[in-house]
């Protein structure tokens, strides 16, 4: 059981870099981190799953919850993931249609900034 969380700020975004395994034992830590950011009025969040070795439905549930919390405040919630094994879990659950998934933290921030400018 291993979960690593690193939080940083980049250009107005909170970046949560997650490593290790996200399951029923470790997901509560990620949930608490996302709640803490929202409570701190950090509504633009990038969650990088690049160093995640495993995620199951409990982890997906925490990300769904994070997305909902951020949207409630008009914020943006973006995932970064390029690992096929992790992407497969999102794909077969249909969640690729729910989350905005980018290939790098930099891409996430740039694309979302552009999207925010174009938004009415």
């Amino acid at each position: 059981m291993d979960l690593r969380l690193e939080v940083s700020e980049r250009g107005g975004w909170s970046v949560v870099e997650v490593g290790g395994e996200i399951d029923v034992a470790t997901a509560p830590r990620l949930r608490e981190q996302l709640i803490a950011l929202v409570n701190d009025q950090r509504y633009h969040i990038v969650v990088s799953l690049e160093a995640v070795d495993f995620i199951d439905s409990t982890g997906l549930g925490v990300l769904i919850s994070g997305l909902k919390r951020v949207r409630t405040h008009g914020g943006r919630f973006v995932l970064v993931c390029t690992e096929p094994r992790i992407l497969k879990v999102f794909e077969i659950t249909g969640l690729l249609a729910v989350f905005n998934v980018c290939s790098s933290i930099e891409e996430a921030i740039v694309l979302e900034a552009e999207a925010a400018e174009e938004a009415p």
Partner: protein
Amino acid sequence: MTAPTAAAGDVVELELPARPEVVSVARLIIGALVAADPLFDEERSADLRLAISEACTNAIQAEMKRRGHDGPPDPEAAPIVMRCVLADGQIEVAITDHGGGFDPTGLEQHPEVTSPDRLNYEGGLGIPLIKMLADDLEFRSTDGGTTVVMRFEPRAPGLRPVIGSVNGSGAGTAQE
């Protein structure tokens, strides 16, 4: 901990404490078993680890619910039992809990996964995931609990249609 090994036709059965920390142990064990069978490639091994993680999570949460979610760990709590049978080029895994039983037909229905309302539900993905990853899935009522029996063949069961609705297969979750 020494990971078990098994040859074709072997049966591996072990009891695990009904605590969240052991789900990763269950994944480790099934990964080691699958590694012993060259028919199962790395992608299929990942499928098994995910399905077993979901089944063990449900079993542990059923047991935790039975004794009260916020209660302290109960050393007398019934363990969950994981039984793996490798035979005829396939793997059958049965996870048994004593959490009071589970009716897979009585699960809460959720909105379509792409519906904004779906964000109101964190759960509901575990059993659909198992259904997609396993070649067969069966729920058996046991004395005071449930046994989930999953059968896996080496090749993934052709990507069945994306869930679209997580309830499209008629199941929700035992993780509510």
